[in-house]
């Protein structure tokens, strides 16, 4: 939807060593929020799965708020922009 923006959902240290498993858990989390696998796939921008756990997804404000309240979620924050130094 037009008012969905890229958010970073940060889950902290990985809870599992298999990256595929970690990514699948991210899709599950998004699927349960958005209601369908297709919506979850369309919304997902990145899965962070090697150095830590989290994902980037296009979310509306209310979706971001719901995710933030889930257990195990540290932050859900809109992404920001950096400049060259």
């Amino acid at each position: 939807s037009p008012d969905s923006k890229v958010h970073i959902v940060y889950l902290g240290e990985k809870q599992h060593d298999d990256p595929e498993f970690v990514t699948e858990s991210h899709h599950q989390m998004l699927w349960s929020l958005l209601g369908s696998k297709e919506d979850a796939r369309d919304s997902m921008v990145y899965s962070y799965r090697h150095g830590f756990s989290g994902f980037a997804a296009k979310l509306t404000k209310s979706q971001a708020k719901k995710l933030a309240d889930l257990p195990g979620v540290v932050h859900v924050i809109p992404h920001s922009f950096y400049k060259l130094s």
Partner: protein
Amino acid sequence: TTRTWDYLGLSAANPKNLLNETNMGEQMIIGIIDTGVWPESEVFNDNGIGPVPSHWKGGCESGEMFNSSHCNKKLIGAKYFINAFIASHESFNSTESLDFISPRDFDGHGTHVATIAGGSYVPNISYKGLAGGTVRGGAPHARIAMYKACWYLDNLDITTCSSADILKAMDEAMHDGVDVLSISLGSDVPMYPETDVRDGITTGAFHAVLKGITVVCSGGNDGPEAQTVTNTAPWIVTVAATTLDRSFATPITLGNSKAILGQALYTGPELGFTSLVYPENPGNSNESFSGTCEFLDFNSNRTMAGKVVLCFTTSPYSGSVSRAARYVKRAGGLGVIIAKHPGYALRPCLDDFPCVSVDYELGTDILLYIRSSGSPVVKIQPSKTLIGQPVGTKVATFSSRGPNSISAAILKPDIAAPGVSILAATNTNTTFNDRGFIMLSGTSMAAPVISGVVALLKSLNRDWSPAAIRSAIVTTAWRTDPFGEQIFAEGSPRKLADPFDYGGGLVNPEKAAKPGLVYDLGLEDYVLYMCSAAYNESSISQLVGKGTVCSNPKPSVLDFNLPSITIPNLKEDVTLTRTLTNVGPLDSVYKASVELLSGVQVTVTPETLVFNSTTKKVSFKVKVSTTHKINTGYYFGSLTWSDSVHNVTIPLSVRTQILQNYYDEN
């Protein structure tokens, strides 16, 4: 870089040195998150470089005008991350954009940074004859892995990087096995708390550091104002920029034979004696005149045509120079002399138009000559490269300064490195490039100097943590220039540099290789810091991946085992703890000495530390009290532990605040 490494004492010339002992960092992998890479540049040649390190698990991604054949044993990795950038910029058209949808570097910034960190030797390079020498990186045989996360936005003519793309790049770099992450990017002040994921770099860096990867970041270019430093997390190495002992003197000769040396990158022909004018109303004209550089276009062409124009500006930006040159050139003028405060990057003017900078004193000398002479004239000769004394080292005007605006007790920046007028590779379509090389300035250029040094240090000491490496760099840094002269910090006015300008000082690679003792940090120390900064236990537990309970009462941030002591609000006596780990000879005895701070008493207990085969770590206490009766500014001193071979020095910065959380105008 044609001067950087000789200046820092890291040249292959000396037989027994860090470069040779580590085979120039051959086993190290430097990950760089930036605008990409120009693979054809000679700085990525892999002549004489051995097989790719076995711990490398990354790859070389194909894309627009880039394929896996562009990688080699020097440039071993190249990936690009654009999903979040595209998701946020509907207007961005991948097929129309000037940028390459691949690891290829459209901007040139990434290629420049990669050169400084780990570029191979490329002899006989200069910028049109200036700054000549051998271009190379700090770790010339280290491998480069480029993670492109910054993109050119055509319709806004800016280059920008999404934190979501950066985080993905960091996640991949951790998987790929890099040893150092070099990030010359910054957010805007004010910032978010360290573990707040809004600051993507900081959060990704936390996990990288816990995995043993040193993360080196630019401190930002928002100086010289205080509290402008960015990338301030305690687990990041934050870098300030200094000048080299090199400048580009440009002779200006007035008609009265007075000779002045200005600064420029003027490589055109000598401009013989030419009429000189300062645009001001002679008193009987109704034309408009302006001698301010930004308003030279107020003058009629007649005022400037065929002449060299003197103007004054209060702007430190090099843009004011190029704008003045454009106005004068458009009016038919032949050159421009800009009187300005010492400032930002020196830049050539388009089409080699003579544009020379001087300070206000010299500018006023020229103005007085113009007003006292009936027909003032001036000659401008091409710039010359001056190296070594009497050219002094200064903290660059633009270099962002501390104190750390998020947590004043965490000293930032950590360290300084040369970042002004650095000659390195770029792509071949960047304006002002000379056969694929260009001079750039910024903390972007200073950070990869440290990244290259870190690669060498890690190569020598594989078991050192990122904190130990940071400690070694900070406690052995020069607090003068390499020749013993004081370092000034540019600003208005210019002042002697202090820890908020350059952290521990100017990086001294040879000394950092053998620091004797280090202030190390482990997971429990980072937890102490986050508990002291009142991050909630559930967040901390998530970050570290296990249940964490903060001690009660919560710990003091002053006890965080940094290689610095910064007390922003001293009132009652404070006693803090530090722990030193011996990384030198097993049997060592160190004695404390304190460089005093006016009106502040510092007592160290014990005054002697004894290390041996069974005692590798020793703690000590530092009691600090003030005799000041008012809220003061910061006073600076230092604490050194010495065994007469190694000097382990940390900066002390103390501000008395009788009235806490108080602000006033005086």
